[in-house]
Structures are given as C-alpha cells and as structure tokens.
C-alpha cells in the first residue's frame, strides 16, 4: 500500500510570512483549509512542496520538502497564495499503484465490494497453496492439503460417481458408486455370493434363496414344519388280554397315516418312524368291567418301556399314556397293557377312539 497523498476540497490559503529558497518550514494564514494528516503537496508560485508534518501555524509550522515533481525551490513572499492542487505527481502515483496490481503474482489482493474481474482478465493471478501461502507454489488440486475437493466426473449413463477417499489413500478421487456390472439374476437355490468390484455398493452379488419350489410342510425334514408326519390308529374289535400278561395291543385300522408308519395287518402293533425327529406319542384304552387288581398301560420304544401308567382297577376304567421321544428312522412305538383281574379281561373297542394310538412329529 503506497503512502497516499492527502486532499481537502477548496484547499487554499496564503503564506504567513515569506520563505527563502532553502527554508524547510512554512506557515499559512488558515491551516484549517488543508489536511491534518500527511503527506500532501502545496503549490506556491511555480514550486511544489510536500508537507510531511506540523500544524501550519507560525508557532508550529509545516515541515516541507522543497522542489517536488521537478519544480525549483525559490523564495516566496509573505501573503502569496498557497493551493492544494491535484498535480501530475498525484495522478502518476495512482497509475503506478494500478500497474503494480496488474502485474502482481504473489500476495493476497483484496477485492472489496464491487464487481470481480473475470478469470480471463486476471490470467496472471493464480490461487496459491493454502497450506503454505506466499511460497510461490500454485494450488495443486491433486493433493488434499489445500482443503478443496476435486470435482466429480460424469459417469456412464445409469451410474453414479462420487468424490471420496478410502483407507490408505491420501487424496480425494472419483469413485463409482455402483459396480458397473449388472446385478446377477437370482435363481431358486442360489447360495450367497459376494460382488466382484471394490466399490461403495456391489450390484453383482447374490443373496441365498430357498430352493424352488418352496417345499411344503410335508416335504420338510428339519425344523418345526413337519407336524404332518404322524399316524393315528385304532382297533375295530375288543381284545382279550390274558391275566398277568404283558400284551402288545393290535391296531388294525387307521384314522390317518401321513408317513406310511403303520400296516393294518403285518406287525400292526407298531408305529414305525420314517422321518427322524422328536415325536409325541399318545395312547388310550378302556377296560371291560372288573375291579380286581391293577390296570396298566405302557408305551414302548423299540421294545423298551418309556412311559408307564398304572392304576387300581374299577369297572370300565380307562387308561391314557403319553410320551415324547427323539427318534431315528425305523424306530418304532408299541403299546402294551397288563392287568391282574385274575382271568382274561377285554380291552374294549369304542369306534375310532378306543383303543387309540397315535404318534406325531413335532420337531
């Protein structure tokens, strides 16, 4: 910033006392006509002097530099006119400052309020490196130290680019938001598979899918979806049970058999497991009239007792028993009964409800 010359309007007075050609001070009749800050230039006769300090009075005269702008110091009489003119030197000072701005390549040049020159007009001015200004190093957009982000480039149609920085990188770069590969076609039974490109989102990955067709409950062999693996059987006549004899009950009728677990003729006492899992087994019978001894109802798994129900006898008593058992394929359940009536006693048949034997897979 130059030491600009100061001005006032209508700056004019007269000398308060004559000066010789080598005096370096002067006083004026009315200092209030001139600036109170310095420097400013006064024209006296043919000489221009520059005032650098002082109050302009006889007691505190102006300090002056003689013969400015090529003029010749000379003696001036008391009362001659002193003017504050816009001289050629003032105009040259302004022109020099403008020229200096026009050619500047370093430093920060404030614009202030107004119209900013277009880039085409200031091609010689470049944005400096913010991390180390004034080191005459121009801004390098390929590094991140300037704090600016590069402009994202336009991607192919249908895709998106973004500017980002990933782990290990030092500068922002253009990145594809999606893998350019079209998403894979999903097929039933597909296993999960990762995408193939390291972008922010992968379009060509796969999710696992269940096989086609989606299995019905009856086709499922695991989980809790197999309630329809089951059988319910009964017997269409009374069965005479010898005294004190563990007698396996026969079942020659089926209410339902959803997994080919029972045969009405061969080994018809058995409910045979065809699908491994946890089974709930239920059996119920009703005895004929008789009140001597005990009545018992057992559930057997592969010939071994797994659940026993016993009760003192009375007429037409019913027995019911229940078991849960984890089974493998070809395991089998049976029911045997026992009594101590003293003579043969019938297990009655009451339609499809007695004697009843069922097994249902629950898991």
């Amino acid at each position: 910033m130059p030491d600009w010359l100061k001005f006032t309007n209508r700056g004019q007075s007269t000398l308060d006392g004559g000066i010789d050609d080598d005096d370096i001070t002067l006083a004026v009749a009315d200092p209030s006509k001139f600036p109170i800050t310095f420097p400013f230039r006064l024209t006296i006769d043919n000489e221009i002097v520059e005032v650098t300090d002082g109050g302009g009075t006889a007691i505190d005269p102006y300090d002056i530099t003689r013969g400015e702008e090529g003029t010749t110091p000379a003696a001036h009489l008391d009362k001659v006119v002193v003017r504050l003119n816009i001289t050629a030197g003032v105009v040259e000072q302004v022109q020099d400052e403008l020229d200096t701005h026009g050619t500047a390549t370093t430093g920060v040049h404030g614009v202030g309020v107004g119209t900013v020159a277009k880039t085409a007009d200031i091609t010689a001015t470049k944005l400096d490196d913010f991390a180390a200004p004034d080191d005459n190093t121009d801004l390098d957009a390929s590094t991140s130290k300037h704090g600016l982000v590069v402009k994202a480039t336009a991607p192919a149609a249908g895709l998106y680019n973004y500017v980002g920085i990933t782990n290990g990188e030092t500068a922002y770069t253009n990145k594809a938001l999606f893998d350019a590969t079209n998403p894979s076609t999903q097929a039933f039974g597909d296993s999960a598979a990762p995408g193939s490109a390291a972008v922010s989102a992968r379009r060509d990955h796969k999710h696992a899918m269940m096989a086609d067709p989606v299995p019905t409950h009856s086709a499922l062999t695991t989980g809790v979806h197999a309630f329809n693996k089951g059988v319910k059987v009964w017997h269409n006549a009374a069965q005479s049970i010898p005294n004190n004899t563990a007698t396996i009950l026969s079942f020659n009728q089926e209410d339902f058999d959803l997994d080919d677990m029972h045969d009405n003729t061969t080994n018809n006492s058995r409910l045979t497991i065809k699908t491994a899992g946890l089974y709930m087994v239920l059996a119920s019978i009703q005895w004929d009239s008789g009140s001597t001894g005990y009545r018992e109802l057992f559930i057997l798994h592969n010939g071994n007792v797994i659940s026993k129900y016993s009760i003192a006898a009375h007429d037409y008593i019913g027995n019911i028993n229940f078991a849960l058992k984890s089974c493998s394929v070809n395991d089998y359940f049976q029911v045997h009964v026992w009594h101590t009536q003293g003579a043969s006693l019938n297990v009655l048949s009451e339609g499809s409800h007695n004697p009843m034997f069922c097994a249902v897979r629950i898991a």
Partner: protein
Amino acid sequence: MIRVYYLKTQRVNNTDIVNGNEYIHGAILDDEGTLRKLIQDTTDNEHAGLIKVAEKWRDATEDEVQQLEAMKAHFPYEPPRNLAQEINELKAKISALEVKAEVEKI
C-alpha cells in the same frame, strides 16, 4: 420251561382272542408279522394245550428269557387268586373222579 409259541387270533363275538388264551398267564404276548408271539414259562399241561393250537413253537432264546424276567420285574404284583375258577376246576375233577369210580364199580 420257557418257550415261545406263535399263535393266531380269532374273532369271537366281536372280540379278538388269541388261540390258547386259557393257557396264558404271567407271560409276554407280542406280535410278529401276522401272528402273536407268546413267551411263557409253561407247565407240561399248558405246553400240551398250547402246541395243539400254535402255528409253531420253540424253546426261548436267552434274550427272550431275559425279556420275560424283565417283564416280571415291571409287574411285581402277585396275581390275585380266582377262587371261583379254582372251585369250578376242583368240582370238575371231583366229578371226573366220581364218574371214574362209578365206571370201575360197574
């Protein structure tokens, strides 16, 4: 002696009764195929009656012997006496003896 008998079942008056039912007690009555499989410690009399109605019979294997013993452990209760049946059986024997005596007297 513990033996195994394979017996058919007959339906009489809407009741399924295994053949030789009157000789069966303290036993295991299983099924095997379409037959009933009886494991019992039979007396000579019971054996004589059962083999008349059995499809086949044989001595019990060691496993079947153990199976019967295990059954008895499961059912520790003593079977109650059927006094009426015992009286009828005694009456029948007395009648038979009386008939025999009459015959010999004649």
